[in-house]
C-alpha cells in the first residue's frame, strides 16, 4: 500500500504539484498535495495585514540617506 519506492528523478522539482502518477503512491500524493495546498492557501490568500506594511514602512524610515 503505502510505499517508499520513489525513484530519484521521477519527481521533477515538485513545484506546486507533482504530476498525477498511475500508482497508489501517486494517488496518495495527489490527494495529500491538494488538501495540504488548500490548507496552506487559506492563509496565503489573505491580504497582507497592516502590521507588516507598517513594519516595512518603519524599517524604510530607518534607512540612512546616503548609500
Amino acid at each position, binding site marked *: 500500500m503505502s510505499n517508499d519506492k520513489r525513484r530519484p528523478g521521477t*519527481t521533477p522539482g515538485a513545484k506546486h504539484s507533482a504530476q498525477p502518477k498511475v500508482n497508489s503512491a501517486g494517488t496518495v500524493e495527489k490527494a495529500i498535495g491538494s488538501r495540504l495546498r488548500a490548507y496552506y492557501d*487559506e492563509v496565503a490568500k489573505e491580504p497582507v495585514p497592516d502590521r507588516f506594511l507598517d513594519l516595512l514602512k518603519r524599517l524604510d524610515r530607518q534607512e540612512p540617506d546616503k548609500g
Partner: protein
Amino acid sequence: MNVSQEFRDGLLAAIPSLRAFAFSLIGRSDRADDLVQETLTKAWAHHSSFQAGTNLRAWLYTILRNEFYSQMRKKGREVEDVDGAYSRNLGVHPEQHGHVDMTDMRTALNQLPADQREALLLVAASGFSYEEAADICQVAMGTIKSRVNRARNRLAEILKIEGEGDFGPDATVEAVISQSAGLRK
C-alpha cells in the same frame, strides 16, 4: 548600503507565503505573525548578506525556520511538545479559518515529527523543489525526499486517504477516492 527596491518588493511579496508557512508550523495566527515579523526584521537587518538575483524566498524561509527553532530552544521545549500543546488547544482556540478540513489537517500535521512536517510543507505546500528545501533545512536532498515521503504516507494514514491498494487500480475509483478525501467532513 541601502536596501534596494527589489529587496523591499521581494519581502512584501513573500509575506503571504511566509505567514502560511509560519501558521502551518505554529498553528496560532498571532504567534505565527510574530514569527514572520521577526523574520522580516532580521532579513532587513541582514540584507547585505543576501545576494541579489538569488532565491530570496528560500533565503527568507531559511531565516524564518532558524528563528522558529531558535525560539523553541530558548523556551526549552521540544518542537513536538509545543505542537502537542497546540493540538490539545484546538478545542479551546478554534482554527480561525473555521473549516473542519483545516482542523483535520492541522491535527494531522501536528502528529508528524517536526522534520517531516517542515519538509512536506516546503515541498508540497510552499512549492519549493527538493533541492531548495534541502538548502533551507540544511540537509541532503535525499533526506528531504525521504522525509516528504514518510510525511505524506503518515498523513494519508491519519487522514485515511487510501491508495489503489485497497480499492484496486481503476482510475475512476481513484478519482472518486481523491475527491471524497478532499470533501471529507
